[in-house]
């Protein structure tokens, strides 16, 4: 599973990476959490508010930091 955190490196982006890693570990599924800081890539996802969470190429959430508990079901859908 491919999880991306889009954001330019503010405190919120870092806490989203932590939440996503926690959710991934809890789901017990193989995968990686990747941090995307390149503006061209962020723009290509159509995201205007960071941080944003992308699971297998689909934007799940933007402009806030969801909890690991909230991220869990998104990983299971994917």
């Amino acid at each position, binding site marked *: 599973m491919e999880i991306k955190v889009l*954001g*330019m*490196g*503010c405190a*919120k*982006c870092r806490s989203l990476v932590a939440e996503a890693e926690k959710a991934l570990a809890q789901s017990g599924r193989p995968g990686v959490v990747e941090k995307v800081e390149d*503006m*061209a890539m*962020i*723009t*290509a*996802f*159509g*995201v*205007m*508010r*960071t*941080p*944003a969470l992308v699971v297998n190429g689909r*934007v*799940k*959430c*933007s*402009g*806030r*930091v969801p909890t690991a*508990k*909230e991220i869990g079901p998104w990983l299971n859908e994917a």
Partner: protein
Amino acid sequence: MAERGLNAEGPAAARPAWVPGLGLALACAAWVLIYSRLRGLASWFTFGLAGLGPSSRFAGAVDFFAFEGPKVLMLMLAVVFGVGVLRSFVTPGRARAMLAGRREALGNVLAALLGIATPFCSCSAVPLFIGFVTSGVPLGVTLTFLVASPMVNEVALVLLFALFGWKVAALYVGTGLAVAMLAGWFIGRLGLEDWVEPWVYQLRAAPGGEIEARGLAERLKAGGVAVRDIVGKVWPWVLAGIAVGAFIHGYVPADFMASFMGRSAWWAVPVSVLMGVPMYSNAAGIIPIVQALMEKGAALGTVLAFMMSVIGLSAPEAIILRKVLKPRLIALFFGTVAAGILVVGYLFNAVF
């Protein structure tokens, strides 16, 4: 805290559709009941429970805190929740669709209004800027949006309403919007598109990356998330601010501030604006202090200029925008907004 209960995690679909509506009605009723009794509760706490004599300075300070603290927190809870729900109707994607290809003057007015309804943290300023500019929103209109959104901030609004009354709150919104509109319009007229970093125009923003909430349960949940994120973060600052305000209220002699921040000191407005630039996250705690200062003789225009500067001119945002704007455009942009704030400050000092 009644609203919290509505947003307990759980499958919203499993509940009948009327449950969130009923919960909301009950929470509102409980809120009104408690809010209407706050004055009596505060007096009971200070003079009954704590047994303080009515004339002491300490009692004055305690009573101020016991009334203003819960009052401001309750107002903030209600407004942040309500605004969170309303905002689930306006996403940046929709705002962009409404603004793309707009003509300037009308575009600036619309952008300022949409800016209030679309919150973003300063780290989102760059993706928003690119998303707007690359899909045909004019530069000046985009800049209006970027100033209006943080300037008219719900926490600041609640505090102004609670501590200064609705007239000052309305003036703050009105003049804040005017500054955002005029600054964006002015820069738009200058035609400075080549002062934007050239790589920005080579990007292409994909449409529809933003997720929207649907249905009452999901919108109420958006309100709950706003409460958790905003009130959860600012309440210690607000209480600390009110505590300092309570101290000033009880101990600092009346008219003490008149010599520093009163209307006779012409330099008070520019100094307040300069002081506001580096302050950012503590805006919530500053307003109660400012209110207490005003009670001791500081002038309204100076206070408003200070607030706008704290919230609208943030140094971190300027640094972040450097990625997409050339330094001279940032300087011009912030200079124009600062000039607008100065005018507002002097205007109110002259009128009131």
